[in-house]
């Protein structure tokens, strides 16, 4: 077509522009009829029917475990059908939030850091009235705190976890390192130097220090050991004072000395497990699930050499990070009664004891059950002592935003772009507005 003959549609004619503006105005008018949308409203339901549950794929109970547990629930409750879905931990929060208005899921697995946010934004429902009083006495104190925000319960603890120190016994013996030396963080650094000097592994330590929540979990554990805290008694951020700074200096020093693998800043827990299981690291912090997988010859090249210890101590003690998770009911669920039955079944001692190989029970008495001890003989003795001493990350509504800031600033310190003090000061200064 010749240019001269072309209609004026090559540009954006005024009529089209007005039409587009009109359509936008109309849609904005319709959209504005309810700013918050018209999401589903929750209901107790009949206690029968179909419910949908959302879990995560990695760490804790495996997909296979949960499928078997659900099959057991179906046998015990023929009137309820549960459809399960699994996503990675990294996608779990956003999936819960995105699905909340539509009421897609009745039961959702939530992390210990989310009850404040998801409870106050009405994504999950308050189940305080459903909680049997005995549960508070029979569960670990750290477990009871998992779904609690203020005085209310927004779920039931299900995965009770913290990070343990894993070491390769064969590597330690080659470097003449005794297990007792790994009782303190200073001892861990000394052991790492000995392992490196003996040429056993180039980088003895590996961590999950990627810019993700995993980084805050490792930092929290070290912060507790060095006597720091996230919030002071008045509720102001305090990780940039004392132990919080010393913890970050410790992390940075381990990189500068070549003891921590530089790939740590790009790794999450699964990367740590792979590297440790390949024999490319001698010491690592990780969750319960690594004990079984690193000692499984089908998944690990160091099976049989993997030992587990409580987290090492520092000047502030040896608290493990509270990395537990809870089962919650979506606020939009129309089957809350059935959802509660399902949660009560999954959390019950017989079910948790039976699947203790992947995740340890929330019940104190389970740790004396032969079935549980047999399932995880390497870990249970350590867990029994460690789970009574946990450090929590701040239970604040804007936790995710605070955590994102902290992750970014900690990484700047780890990469040497800022001093630990400056990085934490900057994080605290910017995060103060979010609280």
């Amino acid at each position, binding site marked *: 077509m010749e240019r001269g003959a072309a209609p004026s549609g090559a540009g954006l004619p005024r009529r089209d522009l007005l039409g587009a503006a009109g359509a936008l105005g109309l849609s904005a008018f319709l959209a504005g009829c309810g700013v918050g949308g018209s999401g589903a409203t929750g209901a107790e339901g009949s206690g029968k029917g179909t419910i949908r549950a959302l879990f995560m794929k990695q760490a804790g109970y495996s997909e296979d475990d949960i499928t078997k547990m659900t099959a057991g629930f179906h046998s015990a409750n023929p009137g309820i059908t549960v459809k399960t879905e699994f996503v990675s931990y990294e996608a779990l929060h956003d999936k819960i939030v995105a699905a909340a208005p539509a009421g897609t899921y009745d039961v959702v697995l939530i992390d210990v850091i989310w009850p404040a946010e998801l409870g106050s*934004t009405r994504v999950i429902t308050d189940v305080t009235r459903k909680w049997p009083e005995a549960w508070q006495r029979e569960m670990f104190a750290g477990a009871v705190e998992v779904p609690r925000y203020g005085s209310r319960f927004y779920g039931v603890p299900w995965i009770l976890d913290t990070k343990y120190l894993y070491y390769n016994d064969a590597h330690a013996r080659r470097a003449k390192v005794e297990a007792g030396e790994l009782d303190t963080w200073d001892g861990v650094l000394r052991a790492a130097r000995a392992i490196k000097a003996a040429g056993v592994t180039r980088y003895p330590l590996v961590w999950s220090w990627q810019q993700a929540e995993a980084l805050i979990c490792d930092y929290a554990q070290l912060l507790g050991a060095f006597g720091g805290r996230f919030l002071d008694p008045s509720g102001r951020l305090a990780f940039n004072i004392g132990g919080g700074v010393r913890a970050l200096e410790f992390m940075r020093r381990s990189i500068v000395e070549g003891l921590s693998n530089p790939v740590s800043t790009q790794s999450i827990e699964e*990367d740590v497990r792979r590297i440790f299981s*390949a024999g490319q690291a001698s010491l690592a912090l990780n969750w319960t699930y690594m004990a079984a997988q690193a000692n499984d010859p089908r998944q690990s090249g160091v099976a049989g050499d993997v030992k587990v210890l409580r987290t090492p101590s520092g000047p502030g003690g040896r608290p493990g990070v509270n990395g537990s998770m809870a089962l919650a009911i979506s606020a939009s669920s129309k089957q809350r009664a059935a959802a509660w039955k399902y949660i009560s079944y999954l959390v019950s001692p017989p079910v948790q004891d039976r699947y203790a190989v992947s995740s340890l029970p929330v019940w104190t008495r389970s740790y004396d059950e032969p079935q549980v001890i047999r399932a995880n003989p390497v870990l249970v003795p350590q867990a029994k002592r460690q789970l009574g001493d946990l450090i929590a990350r701040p239970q604040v509504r804007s936790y995710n935003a605070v955590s994102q800031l902290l992750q970014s600033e900690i990484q700047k310190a780890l990469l040497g772009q800022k001093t630990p003090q400056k990085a934490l000061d900057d994080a605290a200064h910017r995060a103060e507005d979010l609280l």
Partner: protein
Amino acid sequence: MTGMAIATRIRRRIRVPTLTGTGTREVRFAIALLLPAALVVFGVVIYPVGRTLVLSLFGVDSAMPGHYPFVGLRNYAKAFTDPAFYPVLWHTVYFTFVSTALELTLGIGVAMVLNAPLKARWLWRSIVVLPWALPTIVDGALWRWIYNGQYGALNGLLSTLHISHTDHQWLGSPFLALNMVIVADVWKNTSIVAFFVLAGLQTIPHELYEAARMDGAGPVRSFLRVTLPLLRPSIAVVLILRTIEAFKVFDIIYVMTGGGPASGTQTVAFYTYQQAFSNQLFGYGSALAYLIALAVFALAMVYLRILRQGAMAGVR
């Protein structure tokens, strides 16, 4: 708008001088055919656009229905006072400029090769299109593995070739990581650029090259004086499309780096997603989404302007 009004408007558009009974039936039939598409466009494009606009004017801080305060343009103002916004804007502009430039340069080269009289040309063309056919999530996971500083294939290759025995941390520092993500993006998207350019190359008459050769032009001169000028329409189209796509980059960042290290690979789209879904700041996230939309709209205007100026002559 009433059915008659729409009919009148369509009549005007298609320049039907008078409507006979048959004409009216045709118009109604046309409307009936257009209606499903119009409803879909309204439902999946126009309504969300309007709703996002409304949300951006309110302090919405939950995914759930409720009453939220009207904040006017404060969410937009917040973007420009947010200290995290300018670094992510810079990362986005850098990503857009470098990835588009590389994809264009390499895409022209690949297209020239694919246009040459090669044996089994269909096979080469099929191979070249493969990276583009891969889902971005797979592409991101693939390159994350290649770049891994501990067991990655790139370090393995460099070591095997005795080029370097150091474990390079390709995603370990912010600026390097941003560039490595660009490489992954270029690997995937060069093929689509190449195919656009290849389509343009095939419209150039062979006689022009013969005439140029008879006038004493060598291959370089032929390329500069014949090929490039005649490729301008294709290049302009693909340049603008890739620029817009690169500006909206999200998925490859999400998979490869999660925005790290030290927030060095966060882009505007990633930051918007994080604010809206991870932090439940839907009002602020909507304002950021609108700013992205405005930037994309501005780029689209440039595209239309180039069209109008005749650089795209023959391409409509």
